[in-house]
């Protein structure tokens, strides 16, 4: 039982990432009708916003320490962060320690700008083109983005730690009545799950309870009529693209302590997130979130030794297997709407 609960917890943090990426993907598809295969790359760019901020905060000047030697036998050059000298060692250390959460503030404007530039500069030229062409161009864009990141940050994963207070793990089992050491779960993964719930809630609230959101939802339902009312729906959809990019970006920022960012991490998430969108139902926001958590948990279960001993290799195919079953029984996905991609 404790192993099952542990895998559910594991699935929640993975599912949170799937849900956040799929939410943006389906938001873009629902508003602009574009299948954005560069969305995984936006998640990766968000993660590298955290890496960039960490590097900015640790920008240092050199001090020669004649008592120590470097690897070539020369006097060691000690790096002293500028923030330490500007704000004092305590504040400097705090800023560096909390660089990941702080990076959310850094990533939101950057990702909004990237999203808007991407939509205005490239995507809008493909609105009336077939989905296959949209997929090709956005996939190509994703490759360009990841190669640029590799050029600047190299190919190795880059460790980006959580704040010291959230490192390590806690005994979740004791909280729910199990013995000690039965269910150990890292603090940051729980933080990530809660963060995802808050972001998903905020996106839904924005769409549900603001005038802007109401217009966007109306535009998703009937773009032409909303346009005839004199509302510039294109501008709002562009902003939604930016918001979707920002959601993917901050999802990437907060994921960095869980998975050390590398230039191709977006591709790993993209394919799974696309399956999540299809399983949830193209264009359905609640469907994307539901399917994200569902597939994340199923993937975790499939990795259990007991399951793998019964069906070897199931952990590699479970998501696709479930996608096939759901699409055979519910061709529009779990919560898909009639008429979407059915022309």
């Amino acid at each position, binding site marked *: 039982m*404790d*192993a099952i609960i*542990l*895998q559910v917890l*594991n*699935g929640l*943090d*993975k599912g949170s990432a799937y849900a956040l990426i799929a939410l943006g993907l389906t938001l873009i598809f629902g508003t602009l009708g574009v299948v954005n295969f560069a969305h995984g790359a936006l998640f990766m760019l968000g993660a590298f916003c955290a890496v960039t901020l960490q590097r900015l905060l640790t920008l240092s000047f050199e001090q020669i320490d004649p008592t*120590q030697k*470097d*690897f*070539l036998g020369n006097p*060691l050059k000690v790096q002293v962060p500028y923030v330490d000298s500007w704000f004092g060692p305590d504040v400097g250390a705090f800023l560096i320690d909390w660089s990941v959460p702080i990076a959310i503030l850094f990533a939101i404007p950057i990702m909004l700008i990237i999203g808007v530039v991407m939509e205005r500069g490239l995507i809008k030229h493909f609105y009336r083109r077939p989905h296959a062409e949209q997929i090709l161009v956005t996939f190509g864009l994703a490759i360009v983005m990841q190669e640029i990141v*590799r050029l600047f940050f*190299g*190919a*190795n*994963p*880059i*460790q980006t*730690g959580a704040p010291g207070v959230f*490192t*390590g*793990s806690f005994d979740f089992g004791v909280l729910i009545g199990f013995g000690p*050491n*039965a269910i*150990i*779960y*890292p603090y*940051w*993964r729980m933080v990530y799950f809660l963060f995802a719930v808050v972001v998903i809630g905020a996106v839904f609230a924005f769409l549900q309870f603001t005038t802007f959101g109401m217009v966007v939802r109306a535009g998703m339902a009937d773009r032409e009529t909303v346009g005839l009312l004199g509302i510039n729906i294109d501008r709002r959809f562009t902003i939604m693209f930016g918001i979707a990019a920002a959601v993917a970006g901050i999802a990437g920022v907060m994921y960095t*302590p*869980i*998975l*050390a960012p*590398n230039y*191709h*991490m977006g591709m*790993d998430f993209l394919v799974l997130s696309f399956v999540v969108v299809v399983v949830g139902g193209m264009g359905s926001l609640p469907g994307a979130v539901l399917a994200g958590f569902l597939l994340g948990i199923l*993937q*975790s279960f499939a*990795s*259990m*030794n007991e399951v*793998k001993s019964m069906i070897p290799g199931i*952990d*590699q195919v479970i998501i696709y297997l479930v996608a096939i079953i759901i699409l055979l029984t519910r061709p529009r996905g779990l919560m898909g709407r009639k008429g979407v991609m059915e022309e």
Partner: protein
Amino acid sequence: MSDQKKGISRRRVLKTGLAGIVATGVAPTIITNAYGFTNEPTGSTVKFGFNVPQTGPYAAEGLDELRAQQLAVEHLNGIGDGGMLSTFSSKALKGNGVLGKQVDYVTGDTQTKSDAARAAARSMIEKDGVVMINGGSSSGVAVAVQGLCQEAGIIFMAGLTHSNDTTGKDRKANGFRHFFNAYMSGAALAPVLKTAYGTDRRAYHLTADYTWGWTQQASIQLFTEQIGWETVNNVLTPVGAGDFSSYIAPVLNSGADVLVLNHYGGDMINSLTQAVQFGLRDKQVNGKQFEIVVPLYSELMADGAGANIKGVYGSMNWNWQLSDAGTQAFVKSFGEKYGQPPSNSAQTCYAQVMLYADAVERAGSFNPCAVAEALEGFEFDGLGNGPTLYRAADHQCFKDVLVVKGKENPSNQYDTLEVVEITPRAQVEYAPNHEMFGGDEATLGACNPGA
């Protein structure tokens, strides 16, 4: 209506076709066969192929290999300080190219995938006319490219490949490996683990699901069981999985008190980090402190894993902190050119390029069979690993093996690992027909010059 009247004569068709054949690169293959061996260099240059992962989970290792290969070419051509040319026990190389020809090179990206690696190698052989391919990072790739080189009739000087199979069941007459292997890691590590953690331990293995992971796991299991450890479980994980948490979680309740991570490169960085996040290193199991072992280390992995590596044991082929003259000459050259010390994957590629060039000089020919003969049974020193033998029976180098540990108090950013023991060569040697290396059925086959 005849072709003549349309302006297309049979002669013109033949001419055009012939020009097309030459232009599309089919010609080199045809011309090759007129000589004694594949891609015999006829001009003033000779071309080497460097086939390394520039993308994928082992890309950081591959890019470091490439740096070392480029440095080796410079030194062979007489550029720079000559690196290990001055410390190499063989004095056949003079820094004026190889057999009087300047060395040129082409690079390929294996993407850490066997099919991509073979495609890149084939292009190098057929289009670029390389006489030798050096590279690896991933034994799956090395075995695949070695097989291709055997078929094509050129020499394969393996880079980073640690699977027993490379010079075991998949050994080839045209393939040579300087890097150590999984069996040697097990033989070197087990006595150190016995001293550090005792004989009553229960090990849980997470293993990369391909030839290297399988043979490393089998080797470590063999040697740790010889010192009294029990193997609780072995779980295969996909290469490039990224998030290993679902594989790590079951370790917590398995009763194991040691986790052996048979992972490499980016995978090892992620799995080790996630194991630490799940609190494994803080756990007490069976009344003992839980420990993690990473049998195959690299400086780049240690750098990537950061503080998580502290106190974790592993093994290496070479380390830049060794004090011999060859190591110091190489670290100086590499460090001054690239601003960082070389990894052990870089060193093995550098050594392999030097060993190939030296063998060509001693053989007096680029003919792969003459080169192979010069390498077989070759004993040398001065390339950073101490006295080394290229065993003729399986084309595996035999030399001392390093047991290392993540350093508790690094003095600088590159000071991540400390050498805790230099295991003597005699302790890691084995018979060429050892059952872990294909037994009696494993043979090199005949050298293929490609003619």
